[in-house]
């Protein structure tokens, strides 16, 4: 493993082994990624623009600590020295945290999120913070107050969202690992449209302490990577009970690494797979459906028993989600009141606290944040509460029951991750309903809290862009995602002669 390009193209697991064996230093690995970022990341105007903040000094210092530990003969944790891109909705005491919003521009949190702390303890090198739709609300990263991220497959297209920065950083070889957060699909949809791997763990599987809240009953942080095993190794680092998050599950983390290794053998004999009838058909791009059907055929070929399953209430998932989510958003974003942190506008000695609050929120929040705050305020207001929010909560129960009934028959469910491939930047930015359709397949798992993931499933014929296979597993059965994902990955690697990302057009020096 020599040369800059091979360091940035290597898997996280390979880098960790090379660092452990002294074939390369953690500082060299970090420097190679910083150089790659300088080469391709660019600015809000041009380049990938995956990062909002790069902490070169901090990253090199963290890498040097790993090298010193190795030199001192200390045992290194499995991903020690491997660089990572952290979604900028997770607090870091040593770097600004903006949530993609002007209202938090320049804010330095007084504490590290549990996820950030666990990454540091594992010796993982945080390169910087990645771009996202404001407060993780969007499916294209166009709602960032700091300019869009561009899809490394085609810089005129969206990288998905809200975690477009994290997914693009992986696809552009700026980092081998990334952290995302998923409220309605924000890890899985970007993974699908960039040809990478994204896992939304079981709700409560990864601590939310220090994750700036979008919708608290739906938000879940998770691993993003270019390979299934790398995602599993990262999952193990960040998952597990945290007393600082009262919704964190106090159970052993499923053995996702063993599942990923077992899956790589490509034998799914005995696994029961359900194809969700309601997630397909009208509104789905032909190339997406074709690649999805190929993936289902592949699962059969690998020994799985595939049946069709009906989840009748999934049809109402989007509607229920766009009542529940804005309701929680309107409440969560009330904390941005211009008093304790973030932006303050108009504090000239003549205006009252309430006037300053109104001005600050009016100028600090972007269009989508405002839309959702208003929608939530409406749904929670008296006279509409029962008809909208109350009814949406009942539909949420019915969706959870659909999952229960389905998982009584099958081990995992599958669907396309998204109805379409990556669309051009600007196409849907002021058409909220069209934008919301992106999360049609991913939302049910957020409402029910079960584990789900997206894995690369090939390229759509009509546009040559990546398609994702969406796999859903029961609560705390996250290991099944990795079993299926690794089996599909190894079968496709044999078929394609490598990873899907290796088919992406070159992105050399776009920032210059």
């Amino acid at each position, binding site marked *: 493993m020599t040369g800059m390009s091979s360091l940035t193209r290597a898997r996280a697991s390979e880098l960790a082994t090379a660092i452990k064996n002294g074939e390369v230093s953690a500082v060299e690995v970090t420097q190679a990624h910083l150089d790659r970022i300088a080469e391709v990341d660019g600015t809000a105007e041009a380049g990938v623009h995956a990062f909002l903040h790069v902490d070169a000094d901090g990253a090199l210092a963290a890498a040097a600590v790993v090298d010193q530990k190795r030199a001192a003969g200390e045992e290194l944790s499995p991903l020690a020295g491997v660089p990572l891109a952290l979604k900028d909705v997770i607090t870091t005491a040593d770097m600004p945290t903006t949530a993609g919003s002007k209202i938090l521009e320049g804010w330095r949190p*007084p*504490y590290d999120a549990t996820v950030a702390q666990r990454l540091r303890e594992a010796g993982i090198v945080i390169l910087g913070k990645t771009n996202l739709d404001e407060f993780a609300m969007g499916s294209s990263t166009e709602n960032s107050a700091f300019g869009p991220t561009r899809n490394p497959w085609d810089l005129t297209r969206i990288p998905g969202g809200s975690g477009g920065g994290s997914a693009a950083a992986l696809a552009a070889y700026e980092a081998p690992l990334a952290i995302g957060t998923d409220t309605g699909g924000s890890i899985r949809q970007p993974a699908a449209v960039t040809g990478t791997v994204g896992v939304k763990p079981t709700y409560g599987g990864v601590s939310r302490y220090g994750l700036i809240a979008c919708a608290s009953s*739906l938000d879940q942080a998770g691993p993003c990577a270019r390979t299934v095993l790398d995602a599993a190794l990262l999952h193990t680092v960040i998952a597990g009970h945290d007393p600082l998050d009262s919704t964190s599950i106090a159970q052993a983390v499923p053995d996702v690494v063993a599942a990923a290794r077992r899956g790589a053998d490509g034998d799914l004999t005995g696994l029961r797979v359900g194809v969700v009838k309601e997630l397909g058909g009208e509104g789905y791009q032909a190339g997406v459906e074709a690649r999805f059907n190929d993936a289902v055929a592949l699962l059969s070929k690998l020994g799985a028993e595939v049946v069709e399953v009906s989840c009748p209430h999934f049809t109402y998932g989007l509607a229920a989600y766009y*009542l529940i989510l804005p309701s929680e958003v309107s409440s969560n974003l009330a904390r941005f009141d211009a008093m*304790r942190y973030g932006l303050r506008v108009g504090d000239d000695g003549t205006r009252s606290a309430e006037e300053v609050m109104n001005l600050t929120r009016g100028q600090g929040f972007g269009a989508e944040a405002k*839309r959702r705050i*208003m929608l939530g*305020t409406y749904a929670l207001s008296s006279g509409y509460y029962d008809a909208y929010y109350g009814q949406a909560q009942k539909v949420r129960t019915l969706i959870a029951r659909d999952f229960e009934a389905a998982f009584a028959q099958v081990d995992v469910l599958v669907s396309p991750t998204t109805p379409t491939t990556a669309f051009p930047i600007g196409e849907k930015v002021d058409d909220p*309903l069209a934008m919301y359709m992106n999360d049609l397949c991913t939302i049910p798992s957020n409402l029910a809290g079960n584990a789900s993931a997206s894995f690369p499933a090939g390229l759509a014929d009509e546009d040559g862009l990546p398609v994702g296979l969406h796999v859903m597993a029961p609560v705390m059965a996250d290991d099944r995602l990795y079993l299926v994902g690794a089996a599909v990955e190894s079968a496709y690697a044999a078929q394609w002669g490598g990873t899907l990302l290796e088919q992406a057009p070159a992105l050399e020096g776009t920032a210059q």
Partner: protein
Amino acid sequence: MPSISREEVAHLAHLARLDLAPDELDHLAGQLDQILGAVAQVTEVAADDIPPTSHALPLTNVFREDEPRACLPAEAVLAAAPAAEDGRFRVPQILGEEQ
């Protein structure tokens, strides 16, 4: 399905403490109307006897020992505030002059 008027949108903006420009109000009124029309689909589902779910995990009352623990240093918290004075958050006037 109720249609939402510009006046209602202005009232919502007030409740949500959002100062919106007139053109923003017009634009949002149309979009909110369209979104509410779509999400009203939930009312089609027969769910009278279905209990609501507010949270995916069946958790109730998570307790910890009631022991004093260190909290964040005041300086660290105030360092991130828009304005601080005498070890406290400085805020614009809350009460009117006559109060």
